[in-house]
């Protein structure tokens, strides 16, 4: 039997950023295909195209033998493509029954037929073996139950293709088992399932086929039977390491920062490590591993519930999202850089004329920020230059420890190299740097030491020589 869904040569760019650069994929009836790839490999973009939210720039999609387009989410639903979103897209204020029939209400004489809604919803929930009723308010459900609501929604829409986008990221083992039971049931009923996950054990437990994306390109696919874990990992990371400014070797000095048994409820626990002068300490992990949360506690933006931070207080954080957390977009470059340095700029309580501007000009020159003047608004700069402004604003304080959370995400190669160079020089000048990154080549090239986090805990520490792609990925993903 031909595949239910065949995708060939799919391309998609956002602005100048290439998300998909020629992706092929086949999904078969009665089969569960695991889709693997590092963060940013293009998995989410593919899901959005299949659910009708984005349109591909090029490429073809065949569904049930016919070439199709999916211009809107309603079209995806009508085709029979259901999605269980990682972020649980449900309506908290409505009941389960109503969630299942939003925009597809059964009608009688033009009015919603609530009896049918109730009956069909309960039937689907019974079929799935759900442990909650159709009249339950969704707000009172747990995350796992909300996933079941999304699956039930796909079922009442007669979905023939179900996409599970990292549904297990926040589920307990028992809840995962329950979800897998339902997934197998759908597979046996003839559905094609696409299962996206980072956890290898789950892939071998549930899937029978695999597909691997890397940097927006398909790099491998086929039946899982003969393929081992090591082969999958090799496919996921096997790319040339492009590095323009590798970390210069520095003899680490005294300990700057010591963290003991740090914990924050529900986010991370039992975190202990130290950071030395001149050192770049990498923290690798998958999205949701608790790295950014740890950074916010170290920085002081959130409180720890347990443990001690020794030597904190002079720490700067370049946060993950430079647009919402790192800068104030409508402000000028000068105003952004001045923000954490106002005390120094205004020793007598007011900001002296020209001080702000001079400080900004100094950093524009030092980091080669491409801008017309210090008065230019940050929102009009390119991503890379925005990131340099965020770096400058904290570097100007000369903190003892600088934490960089995904500092090169979504910026071009040139700006990336510049960020790496600044990082390296800053550490070389006797400061400490903590680099949080999901990008293996970056972590490996820049770090003197690498810590790996997985689900809120440290799962390994690697020296520069031990830190290979395979070893890090294995520690990060339950492999």
């Amino acid at each position, binding site marked *: 039997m031909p595949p239910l869904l065949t995708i060939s040569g799919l391309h998609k760019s956002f602005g100048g950023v290439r998300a998909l650069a020629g992706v092929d994929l086949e999904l078969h009836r009665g089969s569960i295909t695991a889709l693997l790839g590092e963060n940013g490999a293009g998995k989410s973009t593919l899901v959005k195209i299949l659910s009708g939210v984005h349109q591909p720039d090029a490429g073809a999609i065949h569904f049930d033998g016919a070439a199709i387009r999916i211009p809107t989410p309603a079209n995806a*639903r009508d085709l029979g493509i259901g999605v269980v979103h990682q972020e649980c897209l449900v*309506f908290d204020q409505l009941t389960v029954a109503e969630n299942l029939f939003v925009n597809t209400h059964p009608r009688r004489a*033009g009015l*919603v037929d609530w009896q049918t809604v109730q009956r069909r919803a309960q039937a689907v929930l019974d079929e799935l073996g759900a442990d909650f009723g159709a009249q339950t*308010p969704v707000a009172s459900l747990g995350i796992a139950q909300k996933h079941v609501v999304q699956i039930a929604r796909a079922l009442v829409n007669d979905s023939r293709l179900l996409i599970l986008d990292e549904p297990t990221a926040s589920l307990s*083992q028992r809840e995962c088992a329950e979800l897998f039971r339902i997934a197998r049931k759908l597979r046996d009923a003839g559905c094609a399932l696409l299962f996206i996950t980072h956890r290898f054990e789950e892939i071998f437990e549930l899937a029978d086929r695999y597909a691997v994306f890397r940097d927006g390109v398909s790099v491998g696919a086929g039946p899982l039977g003969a393929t081992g874990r090591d082969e999958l990992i090799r496919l996921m990371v096997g790319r040339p390491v492009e590095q323009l400014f590798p970390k210069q070797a520095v003899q680490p000095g005294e300990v700057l920062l010591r963290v003991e048994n740090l914990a924050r*409820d*529900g986010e991370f626990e039992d975190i202990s490590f130290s950071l030395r002068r001149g050192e770049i300490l990498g923290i690798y992990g998958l999205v*949701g591993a608790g790295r950014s949360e740890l950074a916010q506690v170290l920085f002081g933006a959130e409180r720890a519930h347990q443990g001690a931070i020794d030597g904190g207080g002079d720490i700067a954080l370049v946060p993950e999202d430079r647009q919402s957390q790192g800068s104030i977009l409508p402000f000028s470059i000068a105003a952004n850089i001045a923000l954490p340095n106002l005390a120094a700029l205004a020793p007598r309580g007011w900001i002296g004329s020209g001080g702000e501007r001079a400080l900004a000009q100094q950093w524009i020159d030092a980091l080669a920020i491409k801008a017309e003047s210090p008065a230019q608004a940050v929102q009009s700069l390119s991503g890379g230059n925005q990131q340099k402004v965020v770096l400058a604003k904290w570097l100007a304080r000369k903190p003892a420890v600088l934490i960089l959370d995904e500092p090169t995400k979504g910026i071009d190669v040139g700006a990336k190299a510049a960020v790496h160079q600044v990082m390296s020089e800053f550490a070389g000048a006797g400061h400490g740097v903590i680099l949080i990154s999901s990008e293996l080549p970056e972590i490996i090239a820049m770090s003197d030491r690498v810590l790996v986090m997985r689900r*809120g805990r440290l799962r390994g520490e690697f020296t520069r020589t031990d830190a290979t792609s395979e070893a890090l990925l294995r520690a990060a993903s339950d492999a």
Partner: protein
Amino acid sequence: MKLPAWRNWSQVARRDLQFALLSLVLLAAVVLKYPAFAAPDNLAGVLDDTGILVMLALGQMLVILVRGVDLSVAANLALCGMLAALFNREFPDAGVLPVLLLTLVAGGLLGAFNGILVWKLRLPPIVVTLGTMSIYRGVIYLLSHGSWVNENEMSADFLGFTRAHFLGLSTLTWLALACAVLFIVALRRLPAARNLYAAGGNPEAAAYAGIEAGRMQFRAYVVCGAIAGLAGYLWVARFAVAYTDIALGFELQVIAACLIGGVAITGGAGSALGVVLGCLFLGIIRSSLPLVGISAFWQMFINGIVILAAVLLSARPQHRPRATLEAPR
């Protein structure tokens, strides 16, 4: 009790029931002190005073449900009221029906203008309607050249429609009652209305369900505007005068009635029954305070306390753990 399937019945219904009881207690307290308040004529008068508020608040509720707000309702009302008065002055023998149609259509168009700006230009609702609020008031001045249309320039039909009584209640009260029943049924049973709740509750999830939140906002503004237009005629006929500043600031009472009635300012939650109760509650306070001898300033003060108390009662803690720590597997 068997719960109907259509909604988070227990929560919403419990709030409405509590609120109805609270309103009754308030009413009883007033009546105990001032038995004259319970006289049928007086109660009919309270309903008469509250009727326009009920209709406007129901329209406003739709807009708030989809995360908008309409500050221009009172200006819309005043403009359509002036249109009705001018039309009646030009064509005194045309009867009431053309006036009703004129105000509904004109109000709907004014609402559509708000809606288009919010939907297509993605402008923040509060800014859009703050702007159109001034524009609509300005247009009244342009139309009337600042002059008043007085009772002696209005035809008997025009004035008589709202004042006619049936079973002891005025046309105005019956209209408000009809609106209330229509909204209570429609918001439960009309598919488009259910999508309104979805779009306001979680626009992103609604988009994945094929509902365009902006289009829902547009529709809400049109309905809200049409009701405001109709209310314009009712207002002008009831008070027998039309000029630039009628119902000045009334939009705030309308929004307050929605919030007191349990509509979430963050969108996606609220019941038509709750809104009607909110209006009655405000109406009882407004008409009983003068009896008790409390000044208008205290009325505003008490209104404010009631709004804050209502919002406080419907506030819910919103905590979401961000990461995914769990026991080792």
